[in-house]
């Protein structure tokens, strides 16, 4: 059955041009690209022969691909011929199959060293004949890994034509992927520290609709990376507008700068965040150092240790305070360092219908976010930042960077007013004057839930508490934990106070969270599925949770309105869906000049009631 917009395994975005070329791994495109090779007189033989070699492996795909792309390829011949200025001068070499940069070999070997280290670890720690196995293993590993790296390098090639990017790779299993140029959403250039020292960059190609990265080139030289991006841009723009958009010298983004952060600003932003990364660092440091060495050190410095332990025993409150302060300071410092590494030299530009950003100290990341792909605007803050009016602006996107959970930071740190005006540049909205609270019964539910959780932790630990451990007042310490109950109540009240929402014509606005406080702005046109849910406890209290699903929403901290009065939840769901319907009916009428005929009484899809008795 020819399903309307779908492919069984690939993504199911209907191609807007209707040429039926899916974006994901089409097996071969040598035929499609052959017209362009005529424009490059240097070596027309080589690409087609390498393409021919692949055809044998993938005959099954051959049947449909040429038919799909042949006509479009022949129409594309004209533009590629009439704009030789760009393509022959800077891109002529890119159109032929390219290898990655040779230094990639060095980097790959470097990347495989940690595995070697793990294998050799027993020998390194205790060089004796017993551990000869690990040496043998590492030799075997080297025998396998090094040729694999070289083979991978030799068998990887990429080629950029006005129509598509073709990536061929694979040693045992050849893969031949072609990515149509017009489907490319984002070309991200990433330079980590080592790569930057060698003048290399990683290029990742993302397309609309697919959730993962479509292709990545690891590594090419930095100038090649910018060439590739410029080439793709110019090919994309050639179809639509003229070459006045063909932008950018040496990757310097054009467009209006919306936001940037100077060094003090970055440091300040880090000062408002805490990170627990230092714990991981401490543990990994422990793993590198021989434990016996530490023990010996400790034994040698017994006197000093004794002093410390005595001091701690004498003033338990003081030592607890000291360790809390130490943890705080460490977390604070690592927060600053992380922000410095991540957001150093942060710049955000608005370039036509795309946002472009670049940031990073060691790893410089560059990327674009098409405005059309922004699903939800998210303003995020924590209590400390909120006290000083600082906010972070994120946008939720689909099919973009998976590392950031579909959330991309647009402005890491800015004052409320600046964040709002920046957000309005991305998509216009009007913040509602009044937000409505959820039902106050939510305090009761939250209080009950948190108290249960507390009891579930405390009661068993009190039961198994050894009698010779600390028992202030003759009671096991965990019993004293129940004195936290008032704080639990306070916490529940805080959660209630920090949770409100508003339904407006242009979308749904939700604020929620105490420690991580969010404001979600969900435009009506990005609503996907509407839910109300009521658990068994909520039903007893006549409460409901309202939830509007959006594409690419995070799996935790999602925008839902928890514990609305049941009637209100249903009413708001009705209202939201009504707005959604109205919006799309108006759009259809605007597009076709007539109301949607599919919704007519006689056209309406009907269930025959006869069958399900």
């Amino acid at each position: 059955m020819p399903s309307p917009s779908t492919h069984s395994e690939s993504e199911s975005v209907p191609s807007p041009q209707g040429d039926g070329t899916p974006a994901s791994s089409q097996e071969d495109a040598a035929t499609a690209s052959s017209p362009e090779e005529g424009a490059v007189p240097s070596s027309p033989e080589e690409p087609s022969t390498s393409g021919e070699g692949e055809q044998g492996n993938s005959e099954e795909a051959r049947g449909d691909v040429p038919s799909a792309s042949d006509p479009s390829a022949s129409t594309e011949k004209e533009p590629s011929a009439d704009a030789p200025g760009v393509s022959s001068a800077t891109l002529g070499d890119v159109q032929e199959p390219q290898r990655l940069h040779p230094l990639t070999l060095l980097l790959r070997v470097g990347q495989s060293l940690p595995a070697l280290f793990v294998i050799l670890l027993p020998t390194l720690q205790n060089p004796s004949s017993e551990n000869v196995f690990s040496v043998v293993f590492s030799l075997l590993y080297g025998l396998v890994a090094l040729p694999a790296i070289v083979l991978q390098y030799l068998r990887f090639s990429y080629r950029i034509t006005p129509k598509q990017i073709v990536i061929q790779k694979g040693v045992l299993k050849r893969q031949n992927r072609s990515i149509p140029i017009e489907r490319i959403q984002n070309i991200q250039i990433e330079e980590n520290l080592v790569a930057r020292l060698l003048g290399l960059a990683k290029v990742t190609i993302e397309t609309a609709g697919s959730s993962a990265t479509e292709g990545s080139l690891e590594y090419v030289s930095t100038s090649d990376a910018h060439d590739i991006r410029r080439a793709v841009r110019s090919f994309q723009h050639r179809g639509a507008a003229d070459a006045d958009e063909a932008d950018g010298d040496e990757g310097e983004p054009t467009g209006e700068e919306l936001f940037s952060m100077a060094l003090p600003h970055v440091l300040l932003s880090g000062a408002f965040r805490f990170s627990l990364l230092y714990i991981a660092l401490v543990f990994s440091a422990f793993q590198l150092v021989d434990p016996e060495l530490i023990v010996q050190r400790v034994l040698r410095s017994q006197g000093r240790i004794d002093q410390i332990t005595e001091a701690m025993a004498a003033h338990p409150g003081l030592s607890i305070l000291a360790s809390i302060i130490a943890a705080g300071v460490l977390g604070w410092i690592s927060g600053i360092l992380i922000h410095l590494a991540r957001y150093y030299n942060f710049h955000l530009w608005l370039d036509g219908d795309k946002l472009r950003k670049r940031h990073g100290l060691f790893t410089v990341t560059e990327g674009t976010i098409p405005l059309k792909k922004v699903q939800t605007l998210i303003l995020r803050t924590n209590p400390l930042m909120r006290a000083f009016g600082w906010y972070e602006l994120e946008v939720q996107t689909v099919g973009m960077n998976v590392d950031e959970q579909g959330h991309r930071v647009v402005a890491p740190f800015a004052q409320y007013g600046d964040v709002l005006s920046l957000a309005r540049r991305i998509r216009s909205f009007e913040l509602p004057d009044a937000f409505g609270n959820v039902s106050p019964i939510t305090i009761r539910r939250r209080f009950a839930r948190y108290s249960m959780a507390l009891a579930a932790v405390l009661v068993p630990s009190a039961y198994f508490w050894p009698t010779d451990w600390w028992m202030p007042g003759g009671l096991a310490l965990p019993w004293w934990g129940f004195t936290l109950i008032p704080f639990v109540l306070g916490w529940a009240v805080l959660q209630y106070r920090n949770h409100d929402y508003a339904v407006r014509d242009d979308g749904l606005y939700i604020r929620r969270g105490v420690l991580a406080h969010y404001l979600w702005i969900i435009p009506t046109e990005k609503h996907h599925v509407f839910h109300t849910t009521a658990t068994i406890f909520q039903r007893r209290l006549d409460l409901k949770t309202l939830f509007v699903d959006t594409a690419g929403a995070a799996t935790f901290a999602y925008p839902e309105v928890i514990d609305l009065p049941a009637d209100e939840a249903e009413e708001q769901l009705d209202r939201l869906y009504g707005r959604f319907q109205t919006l799309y009916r108006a759009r259809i009428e605007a597009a076709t000049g007539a109301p949607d005929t599919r919704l007519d009484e006689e056209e309406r899809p009907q269930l025959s009631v006869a069958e399900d008795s």
Partner: protein
Amino acid sequence: METSSSGPDRSEVLTGDALHPLDTSITSIWTIKLLGLAVLLFLPALFYDLTHMFAPDAWLPFGVLSGTVLGLGLLYGIAWPRLRYRSWGFALRPEELYVEHGVITNVRTVVPLRRIQHVDVSQDLIEREYALGRLVVHTAGSRSSDVVVPGLPLAEAERIRDEVKRFILEDPLTEDPV
């Protein structure tokens, strides 16, 4: 009763026409599956009982453990599908699929037809015996991207699928779905 006349603001989607129940034989399918699970739990319990039949320090008389497991399993396998069946209801409306289900957590879902990415009808072995199919609706949403309506007569499931397909194919708006 089936007029869901939508005003400018409200959709009346929750108060529209009556919901269709699932096919009644879905309870049998669920019972079979749950009883299979109960047997899986019962066998280890029985094994424990048999191996500890003559143990001097048995903390339970023979048969108590396996009997309890079997009894609870039977009760669960017979009562639960009925509860679940009663909680289910769905309706295909002009512009949306409306689904209501859930015993412990009651969920009402409105899937606008224009948001559907694709539709499957699937069948497992037991469902095939009863000539039932399940409708799986995929959307681009993240948390509950698949909406499943089980226990439809296969022909009906396929008809719904075709209706949805027609709706999408005839959509005059050619925009990216996300």
